């Protein structure tokens, strides 16, 4: 597996900036929705073996709430908005005035509201990326799941599964105040999207 061998530091920085811009806009959108400041951690760009990706959210068996988008257009990929079930309940309460039931699972209305919140955030994430790169990127209809992180995330790795055993992950965490994690964006671009992103940003390709 050497898809990523030539991704030297400079290119990683470019991808970090890509994550930064996308998530910065999404954080602003979330902050407007919640009417309070939302901070953002410096994005992490990592090439990770599949096994390790679920560790980013607490291990393969950790229960997470995930809104998944297939990104279509010139630079396709997979986008996850991931949050803890508690953070999901908090969002529902503050945004939609829904007092989440005591039950462990989300009912249909709650699920629909959460998908919509994810949709708004992913929309702002992707549209800022599209503006920045001049590449079209549009999210598909969101899919929502609350389940084991491993089961959810490996769905986003199928594209990579055909290529090798590592994926490139652009990981951005939203913070409320200093610690409380509101959610995480994982962008996993399809392998063929990298060259397009680099090219459109004027990064010389090493192969040329």
């Amino acid at each position, binding site marked *: 597996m050497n898809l990523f061998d030539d991704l030297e530091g400079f290119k990683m920085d470019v991808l970090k900036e890509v994550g930064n811009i996308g998530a910065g806009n999404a954080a602003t959108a979330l902050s407007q929705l919640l009417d309070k400041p939302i901070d953002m951690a410096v994005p992490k760009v990592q090439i990770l073996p599949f096994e390790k990706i679920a560790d980013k959210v607490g*291990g393969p068996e950790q229960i997470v709430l995930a809104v998944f988008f297939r990104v279509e257009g010139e630079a396709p990929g997979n986008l996850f908005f991931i949050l803890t079930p508690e953070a999901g309940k908090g969002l529902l309460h503050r945004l939609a005035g829904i007092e989440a039931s005591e039950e462990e699972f989300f009912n249909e209305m709650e699920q629909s509201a959460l998908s919509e919140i994810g949709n708004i955030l992913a929309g702002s994430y992707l549209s800022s990326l599209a503006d920045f790169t001049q590449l079209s990127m549009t999210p598909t*209809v969101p899919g929502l799941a609350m389940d084991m992180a491993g*089961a959810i995330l*490996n*769905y986003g790795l199928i594209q990579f*599964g055909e290529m090798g055993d590592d994926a490139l992950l652009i990981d951005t965490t939203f913070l409320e105040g200093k610690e409380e994690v509101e959610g995480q964006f994982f962008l996993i671009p399809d392998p063929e999207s990298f060259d397009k992103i680099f090219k459109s940003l004027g990064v010389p390709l090493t192969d040329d």
Partner: protein
Amino acid sequence: MIEEQNIVKVGMADLNVVKTSGIIRTTGLGSCVGLTLYDKNIQLAGMAHVMLPSSDIARDGQLNIAKYADTALPELVRKMTALGASRSRIVAKMAGGAQMFNFSSGGDHMRIGPRNVEACKLFLEEYKIPLLAEDTGANYGRTIEMDCISGILFIRSVQMGKKEL
């Protein structure tokens, strides 16, 4: 138990075996399939965490044979027979192959879970290995483990709780 139990972990796109005593486990199966083979006579259990149906699509020089249904099964059978398993005694159980997200539209990638299950069944048939039980499909993730003494496959999921096959 005084002795520490022997737990063998099978990662994503990985396979392994456990013999005589212990448990073999894989966590967080979504659209992947956890394929287990078992030979009761020698208490040997094998497990593969299959990610994709066929290695035909592999575009890479280096092939991870545990990743694809068509290559993982032969390798698992080979490993087990090398440890004394008999082809005629091996039986199979499997779980996973869920569709984690539902979309009205979407190409073949969207139904990778069912395709993994179909592929595993096809190759089991080719190898004439009987499939004793399965817990596949639906839309939730599973963690599975097999006890190599009993050959029971334990399945845990967030939505459905515990199950035994």
